[in-house]
Every structure is written in C-alpha cells, then in structure tokens.
C-alpha cells in the first residue's frame, strides 16, 4: 500500500519528465549558454576567447545587421496590411451565398500547405526580369517591365507579395470563420436604417472580427521575423543587401564564417526585439478592442 502511494506521488513527475528533460536540454541550457557565448569569440575549432562586450559593440556598428532589421520591418509593413486586405476581401465574397465554395477554398489554401522552398523556386521564375511570366504579361499589355528582384527598392516588396500569396489562404479561412460569427440580424437592422455596404462593413463587420485581425497581425509578425528560405533561395540577400533578413544574416555569420559568439549575440538581440514588438502589438491591439 505504501509502495503504491509512493508510486502515485512519483507518477506525475515521471509523466512530465520528458518535457522537463527537453526543456533543460533544448531550452534552458541553450538560453544560458547563449548568454555566455555573447561575451566570447569562438569558431568552434579553436578554444573560446573572452572578448567582453565586443560582440555587442560590433552589433550596433554592423550596418548589414541593422539593415536586415529594417528589411524585416519593410517586409512586415507591406505584408501585414496586404494580407489583411486581400484575405478580408476574398473572405467577404466567399461569405456570400456562393456555389463551389469548397473548390475556391481549397484553391486558396493550396500554397499554404506546399513547402516554402517550392513556392520560392516557382516565384523566382515568375519574377524573372527578361523572360519571367509576370514581366511577359506586363509587356503583352504594353506596360513597362518591373525589376522585381533586381531593383533594390522592389526586391523586398516582391518577397512580401510572394509571402502573401503563400499564406493568405490560411487567413481567408480564419476571416471566414470570423465573419460567420457575426449575427445576421445586425446587418438586417443596419439595412433598415439605410446603411450602405461600406457603412455595414466598417460599423459592424470590422469591429466584430477584430480578434481575428489581431491574431493575423501577431501570426504574420512572427512569421515575418523568421523570414529565411525565401531570400536564401531567391536573392541570397541582395541586391545591395535589400532582402537580407535577420535570420539569414545570423545563419551566414554562424554557419558561413563560424562566428559563433557574434551570431549568438545577434540571435539574442533579435529575439529580444521580437518579444518587444509582439508585446507592444498586443498592448496596442488590445486597447483598440
């Protein structure tokens, strides 16, 4: 009996032990270790060398890293509004009494499930300047070609457009779910008062789906901060570092040049920045509700 009770006391800990182990090994230790690493210079093959605050000083002088952060912000500023507008627009239409809803939904959702690698390889071809599909379409209707990936001012927006194409299907569905929670009689009441379509949208729909917008903003932000494979395949970070993302730069520092200490410093700093942005967004958006 006593044995049984000891066992019962221990059992929950056995049950949570996989998590504890994982946490210690892959979360707690790495975080602590990374803090130590930021004060060192280390290329893995030679011994670690203590360098004090050097890595931090270098970070604030590193124009490419600062550029990578502003690139990420440019990406978000284009990507988030675009995503919300397109998703809302299509979701609004899908929310009407439409046939083949399932087909359309599946079509929009297809890019979401396909690997970003495929999407990027594909869009690299679509974005080609000389013989890319998009530019061929533009010239065929008499418009000038666009330097999608070769114009430094255009490259990041191009990646943001592609990312929107890839993810928007998910947000269409999210908005659709949100729209369906808006009670019909709200609209009917508004119609009786003579509200037009836009008024209904801004006065009823938008406030009602605010939580969904909130979620979309947070999810897109986190996604935008982890941008990596798109510039890695498409542009290598160019032209003129206009598409280098923070993760790509950290990857280069860490695994091209084996500046482990410096790359860790960048990672730590960037992670703090992400937390800061997301927390601010939360505060700001919750206030808006």
């Amino acid at each position, binding site marked *: 009996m006593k044995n049984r009770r000891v066992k019962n006391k221990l059992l929950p800990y056995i049950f949570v032990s996989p998590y504890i182990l994982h946490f210690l090994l892959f979360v707690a230790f790495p975080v602590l270790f990374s803090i130590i690493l930021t004060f060192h210079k280390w290329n893995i093959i*030679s011994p670690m060398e203590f360098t004090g605050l050097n890595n931090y000083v270098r970070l604030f002088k590193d124009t490419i890293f600062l550029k990578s952060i502003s690139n990420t912000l440019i990406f978000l500023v284009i990507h988030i509004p675009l995503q919300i507008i397109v998703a809302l627009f299509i979701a609004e239409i899908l929310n009407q009494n439409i046939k083949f809803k399932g087909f359309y939904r599946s079509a929009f959702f297809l890019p979401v499930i396909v690997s970003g690698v495929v999407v990027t390889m594909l869009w690299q071809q679509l974005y080609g300047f000389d013989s890319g599909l998009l530019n061929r379409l533009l010239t065929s209707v008499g418009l000038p*070609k666009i*330097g999608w990936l070769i114009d430094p001012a255009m490259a990041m927006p191009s990646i943001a457009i592609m990312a929107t194409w890839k993810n928007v299907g998910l947000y269409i569905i999210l908005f659709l779910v949100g729209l369906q929670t808006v009670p019909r009689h709200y609209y009917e009441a508004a119609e009786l008062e003579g509200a037009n379509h836009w008024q209904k949208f801004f006065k009823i729909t938008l406030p009602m789906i605010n939580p969904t917008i909130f979620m979309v903003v947070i999810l897109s932000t986190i996604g935008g901060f982890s941008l990596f494979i798109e510039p890695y395949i498409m542009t290598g*970070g160019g*032209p*003129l570092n206009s598409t280098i993302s923070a993760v790509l730069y950290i990857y280069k520092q860490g695994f091209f040049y084996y500046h482990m200490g410096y790359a860790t410093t960048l990672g730590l700093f960037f992670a703090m920045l992400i937390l800061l942005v997301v927390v601010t967004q939360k505060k700001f958006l919750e206030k808006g509700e």
Partner: protein
Amino acid sequence: MIIISKILFKVFIPVLLIITTFGCTKNSKSETDLLYWSSNLPEEILFAKYITTEWNENKKTYHIKFQPVPEGQSSEEVILAAVVGKTTPDIYSNMWQGDVEVYGLAGVLIPFDTLEGFWDFINERCDSTTIAEVTSSDGHIYQIPWKINPIMMIYNQNIIKELNLKEVPRTYSEFTSAAKQFQKDSDGDGYVDRWFGYSEVLVTWWQRFFDFYPLYLAASGGAPLIENNKAVFNNEYAVGVFKFLKNLYDNNYFSRERLSTKQDIFLSGVVATRFTGPWEIAHSEKFKPAGFEYGFQNMPVPDNYTGPVYTYCDPKNIVVFNTCINPQLAFNFIKFALSKKNDLKFLELTNQLPRRKGIDENPFYKEYFENNLKMKIFAEQAKYVKGTDINPKLKEVFDLISQEYEACVIYGVKTPEDAVRDAAEAVDLLFLD
C-alpha cells in the same frame, strides 16, 4: 486506438533502432589502415579509386582505405564538421588553399616540412613562387599543391565571327566595344536580351573568384590582396577592374538579373562570353547545340598592359590531419599519388590540371595535350596563375570586397575609388580584433 499504439511500438521503436545504428556506423576503419577522402566528383572518385588500388596491390606495407568525402552542401562544411566532431580522415585531397591557414593555425593539420623527403619532393614539383604561396604565416607548410582550375574567358566563336571581330577581345576597351556592338533586343520588346558577358551577381564571397579576383590578378601581374594582415589592394588595378566592370553594367552590356537561375545562357547564345574554368569544356561538350563553337582566351587586361596575363587558379590541395597516426606513411602515399605517371592519369580521368611546374612543356604530357587542345590553353595559362593569399580571414576579406563590388560595380551607387577604398578600410578593421 489499439492499432495506433501497436503501430507506435511496431514502427517507432524499430525506427529508433535504425537511427541509432546509422548514427554509429560512421567511421569504420581498422587501426592499420589510413583513411583517404577525395572530393565527390565522379571523375575524381575514379582517380582516387585507381591510385588506392594501385597502391594497395603493389606496396604491402599498409593499406589505404578510400572514401569520397561525404556528400554535403559544400565539402568545406563537411570538413569543418569532421574537424569539430573529430571524425577527420587521415588524408584529404580537396582542400581549398584559402582554407588551409585556418586549420593549420588551429593545429589540426600535420606540417609536411617536418616529414622526411618533403623538400626534395616539393622542389621537384613546384617552383619557388608556388612554395611561397602555400607556406603558412608560421613558417610551416601544411598542404601539398595538387590541382588547379585556372579562370579564363570562354567565348562563343560564332558570335565573334558574326561581329566581324579581327580577334577575340583582349583589353578592356576591346571588350567594351565588342560588348556595345553585340548588345541587342532580339525579340523587340524594348528590353535588351543579349549581353556580351555575364558574371554572377550574387554577393556570396567566392563568386568574386570568377570576376574581380582574376581580373585584379591579370591587371596587376599577380599582386596580393593582403599582406601581413593589411589590405594592399587599394590601388589602380582594383579601381581599374571596378571601373571596367561598372561601365559594363551601367550600359547594360552585362545583365544585373540573376541569369544563372535560368537555362544555360552561354550555350543558348544569350551571352557571348563568361569567365570560367576548364570544367566548362566537359559541360559544353555535353550540352552544346549542333554547330556551336567556342574557345578560351586570357582574362581581359587594361589597355596599356604588357606582359603575361595572370589569373586565379582555384587551387585544391592535399592535407593530412593530426588524427593521423603515421603522417610519414600518409606522405609517402601522397608522393605516390602525385607521381609523374599518376598526374597523367589524373589529367586523363578528370580534365583538371595537376599543379606541377612546366606541365605544358614536359614531353611526358605532350600526347595528352595534343589530343586535348583546349586543355593545352589552360596548361599554358598555368605558368601565370596565383592561388590565394595566406590569411585565416580570407573569406571575410572576399565578403567585404564583394559587398563593395555589388554596390559599385553592379548597382553603381558608389564610385570605384570610394568602393575600393572602403573595402580596404573594412578589411583593415577586420584585422584589428
């Protein structure tokens, strides 16, 4: 659900077992063997197999076990992972010369100069400039010069004829005027779609091996980029190269678009020239359309340049890791693998050049070069080549140059003078910490 838990135990556990066995079967070699890694190019594997078999059959003293370097993203990364994980082979034959210094100074390589018979061997194989080129800053020699692939200009013979050029452009002005003449909009959509040349527009550091660096060596007669941890490339040659290339991009004689993500632009006639190595011969023979003719020429030089035209040779060398229990034996094997006879075998099997002095004039190789006239051009070029400067931060140096190269040459947001000066200053900063 019972099914699922059954699957869990029937599938998951075996999978785990498989994983653990895979994880453990990585390095199997007996104590008496020496492990030799070659690169994983099919032709080089053939060669490595050939010499190890020859060796093992004729010399019974000890055994060489051969294996191509585990295929990966790049062989450099694989080697680094092996060094970190202490799973290095004894002998590795595909080390980029610019990488050796890092490993040498980190103490993971055997200095050959401490081994018996080294100096006789190296003096017979290489001239003094090559020996100086591979001598580490600490005075030791950690590598044996093995093979090179000099960078030259490949050109489309038919286009040269079409343009009525008397000869293939040799100087910056000849190149530029030919480029001007060739540029065209073949489908009439208002945009240029034929360029005289193309160089990779990516900023990745080693891309500069195929434009800036060989052009710099050509213009300067083989001058270094760095000396004693200081940038020495802030000179007229580097500025001249930047000017020359910048002008090509400014006028759209070279494309800013990453054409390399499309079909082969040289063989499809979209560009008339490229800067490339002897591997292009095999590639062109394999993929060229009917009637396609091409040739090779030195890198373009400044108009007033006289003398032999240098270029970068992309040297790959042989090293022995300190995990090797008997370096002398490893060295003896290397000597055998690099013998006169085996160098010929290497040429025949791989169409890459052994880094051996006077190879183009040596009667022993005459027959091969008579049968491979295009290779002969590279063999003649091999007299005037440079590898890399000795420096542990070479990648970063090339990366910094490449950043400025992109800003100035490709996008024209900086003058050549400013760009070269800024790159040199950034390199000097690199050596401060």
